[in-house]
């Protein structure tokens, strides 16, 4: 079963901390990122998460656009006083009120997480790295650039980049030296081959 992930957007340190401590009471959950102001939200698109919990007061013309863009894949939960009226421009999955007791917050979250699981049938089987990816990895480790690899394998640079992203995601290794070590450890290349391509 994969973890339910949360992003929290709220100005108050105390409220963020409080909410996190409640979320952490639920097994298999993780708060992957938190924001204390609207300025930083630009980078939101870089995160994959199941839920965003946001104080609606932090929504302005800019942030609304950002949230709209990502809301297709992420469920929105508001975090505010009961009296706040939510904007109709966004689709809210649930509302958490500052007046809520811990139990009612837990209940709401558990329901959401439960619903999510029936929707998502993603299996947790670790993804094997494919034959094609091993080819690419080999060339990266040998020191070839994306463009060179594309030319060598008769594919577009864009495809190479996509493969690279997948390799990084599957292995958890991002940098070229890191990938090189992986390739050597797994006998994809020989230690004496490294850096040969670059004269």
């Amino acid at each position, binding site marked *: 079963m994969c973890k339910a992930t949360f992003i929290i957007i709220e100005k108050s340190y105390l409220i963020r901390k409080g909410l996190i401590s409640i979320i952490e009471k639920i097994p298999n959950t993780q708060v992957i990122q938190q924001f204390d102001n609207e300025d930083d939200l630009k980078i939101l698109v870089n995160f994959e998460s199941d839920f965003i919990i946001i104080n609606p007061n932090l929504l302005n013309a800019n942030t609304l656009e950002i949230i709209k863009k990502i809301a297709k894949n992420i469920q929105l939960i508001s975090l505010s006083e009961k009296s706040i009226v939510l904007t109709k421009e966004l689709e809210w999955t649930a509302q958490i009120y500052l007046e809520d007791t811990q139990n009612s917050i837990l209940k709401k979250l558990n329901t959401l997480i439960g619903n999510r699981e029936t929707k998502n049938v993603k299996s947790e089987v670790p993804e094997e790295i494919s034959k094609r990816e091993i080819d690419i990895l080999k060339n990266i480790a040998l020191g070839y650039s994306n463009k060179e690899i594309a030319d060598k394998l008769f594919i577009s640079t864009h495809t190479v980049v996509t493969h690279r992203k997948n390799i990084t995601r599957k292995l*958890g290794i991002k*940098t070229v*030296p*890191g990938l090189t*070590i992986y390739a050597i*450890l*797994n006998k994809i290349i020989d230690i004496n081959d490294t850096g040969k391509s670059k004269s």
Partner: protein
Amino acid sequence: MADVIHTNYFTLSVLNRFGIELGFGDKSVEEVCKKNNVDVDFFLEIVNAFIDKDYFPKKHLQTFPVKLITDYLQKTHDYYHKLKVPEIENLIEEMVDSCYTQKENIVLLKKFFNDYKQELLNHTHREEEVVFPYTLALEKAYNSEELDNSVIELMDTYSIEIFQNEHDDIEEKLLDLRNIIIKYLPQPKNSKLCNKLLYELFNLEQDINDHSRIEEKVLVPKIREMEKIITKRFTKK
């Protein structure tokens, strides 16, 4: 002050960067800071941000003089190069010496870290030689009454925008190294040494994280603001 350390052991290294040595008895944080000529407010914000990665009062931190900030950053660089990096090197060296089954793999790690060390050195060197002097010069111009054209010339040759763009993610490789050791290095490993190494790598990574955060979210916006105001002053003239 003793409580600060008892709360979180890692603050020791932060104290170190402020030049505060142990043996302060029961003195309060304020007293110890005063005695060591350390700005109490600044010290507290830095320590708290260091302990708790969710706590980051960047607006408040931006109000401190550039010199305070760059001094702290500079000291942190020294800490990496003089203490942390050699410590990790020693651990890897020990692993090479004590390993018989896969010496060649550990030697790979050693080379990886050696390259990383060079990269870190280049990174901090550039900051110390180019970025910090620039920020200090800019602050001086900002605080001065007269309009000196040399600052405009300086701003023509460099800007904090350039730094922001060239400032690379120096932690990435450390994470890679940890992943390699945890997931892909064949057994058997000398687990005691291995754990120690992982622990040190993790600490360094966290520390650099905190450090880069100060550079990117405190120093950069602060200087950008100054650049704006200085430019305004000159256009008014």
